């Protein structure tokens, strides 16, 4: 299963092969995948990520992902209002 991942600022160091912070991540087909699995594949721990968008919707690491999804990961130093008053999908 393939998903597209967009990384913000300092997280880009984890995927030097990405262009403009964006690339494709391959996940095993034989299991239910979550955003956390995508993060693990890139070696990114949960405390390194503050804001997650799954197909443009604010999401939690536990949100399920499917073939072709777009996942954007941003670190804690990001300014954004979403973390303070948005409900995350997957929780």
């Amino acid at each position, binding site marked *: 299963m393939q998903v597209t991942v*967009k990384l*913000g*600022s*300092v997280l*880009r160091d984890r995927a030097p092969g990405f262009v*403009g*912070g*964006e690339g494709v991540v391959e996940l095993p087909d034989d299991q239910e995948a979550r955003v956390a699995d995508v993060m693990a594949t890139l070696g990114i721990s949960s405390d390194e990520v503050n*804001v997650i*968008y799954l*197909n*443009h*919707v*604010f999401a939690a690491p536990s949100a399920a992902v499917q073939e072709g999804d777009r996942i*954007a990961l*941003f*670190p*804690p*130093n*990001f*300014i*954004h*209002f*979403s973390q*303070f*008053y*948005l*409900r995350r999908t997957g929780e």
Partner: protein
Amino acid sequence: MRKLLRVNVEDGTAVFETLPQEFDLLGGRALTSTIVSREVDAKCDPLGPANKIVFAPGVLGGTSAPNSGRLSVGCKSPLTGGIKEANSGGQAAGRLGRLGIAAIVVEGDPGDKKWILHVSAEGAQLEDGAAYWGMSNYDCAAALRKAYGPNAATIQVGPAGEYGMLNSSVACTDPAGNPSRHAGRGGVGAVMGARGLKAIVLDDVGTKTRVPSEPERFEKARKTLVQGLKTHPVTSEGLTDFGTAILVNIINEAGGLPTHNFHYGRFEQAEAISGETVHQNCEERGGKRRHACMTGCVIHCSNVYNDKEGKYVSSGLEYETIWALGANCDNADIEAIAQMDRLCDDLGLDTIEMGDTFGVAMEGGLLPWGDAGRMIALFEEIRHNTELGRKIGNGTGHCARSLGVTHVPTVKNQGIPAYDPRAVKGIGATYATSTMGADHTAGYAVAPNILKVGGDVHPLQAEGQCTLSQNLQEATAGFFDSMGLCVFLAFACLDQPDSLAAIPEMASALYGVEMSVADVIAQGAKVLEIERDFNTRAGMTREDDRLPSFFHTEELPPHNTIWDVPDGELDQVCGWSPVVELG
């Protein structure tokens, strides 16, 4: 004891008055809005002789409080027809505070006279400014430094303000002397220009940082806030390393980046104009990151952007500017955006209003979508005050009407900023109900947990947005716009109750009074009440507290949502009585 400086451009006088006792604890927006509300006829022509322009540092201006150098500029707005407070960073507010000035009120009919107001520890006087009239902001700032010495910090208008254009800013110089900090919104530059006042020169030689009534108490609170700012990841790393432009990618991923004049919520070429790209270009070209726009800033969110040859182009390439002149116009050329940012600063134009104007101009066929070269050329029309220049220099609403465009992103005739209200509905409620017209800073501070807004509010749902917005607007008016503090302090104060409490504690120690967090929020609510009263007297009705109709009918991809916050809830925020259906 702080003073009020009353400047009459008709008879050429500048007189210090004792600040009325009831104004003792007022600063920034609270003071400008109170003075405008009392002294300016709400029905007056904003560019006529009855309007006044008021400049005020915040309550904490001129103290050693971090990031306390925001300057409030107040008047009746020629763009919205309502009350206006636009604020700016730069050096001016700190200077005014140290000079013991709570506010400068400029009034009178100048006739043909052009003035420079010179203020120093020795006093204040109006001087002949004819030689500076007609200069662009960068030339004017350099000429004033040459004439008044390197210590001169200035507040000035560019050509757009001189021409009385409804999109015109008031510029303040930064620590390097560049006029790159602007009270941008609402056409405040035209009001200053209509007073014949080209610039205010502030010299603080011989002055000192304000001494609090209770110095030890003040210092303790100040240290608490500084420590909070230096340890919070947003104010010590994110804003510091990447600036506000970091929002381009995140708002784009959230599906709320207005694109192609608010037709789409995503810009496919966002990466080319992102904070990461700006960051990389700054690194490679000897530009500067971690740049402070005012003395006493501990966040350093600004940058200095150089061209490919390493030559200075502009300072403070902000998210909203990049969005306005970029995504909203289908323009992915970051070099052209930087160049236009410089042109806006130089001519004295608000970048948000300019980007919204280009959006409707492209929709109306005045220029092709994404044509950065043509956009840059149009700035020269403004510089020379041509008919075409006036068409785009008078703001989004004016340009749209002249071209017959009906897809017009404005509230109270002021261009909507960089977050689409159909994807981020809390901000939409702020756009609709702010006394200022569409203004993201009026209710952006995001302190819902502190303000005890219960539970989560999903951005795509209508419920709860108005309560959220109202609380944010009151907190912003109280904590930041009236204290003279940078709104970015909110990110730390949100997570750190001690940092938030340090703000009223500093004000308490400064004046030897007892002020609480609740008092500051109540002050913010009072400011909004004064402003709403002015707007009502100016002729605004509940229909002015609405978003344009296309937001109600056109779905915004990728979420395919519309604006559906009920009018009745907006009315509650604004204090309008409920509509009773008859029959």
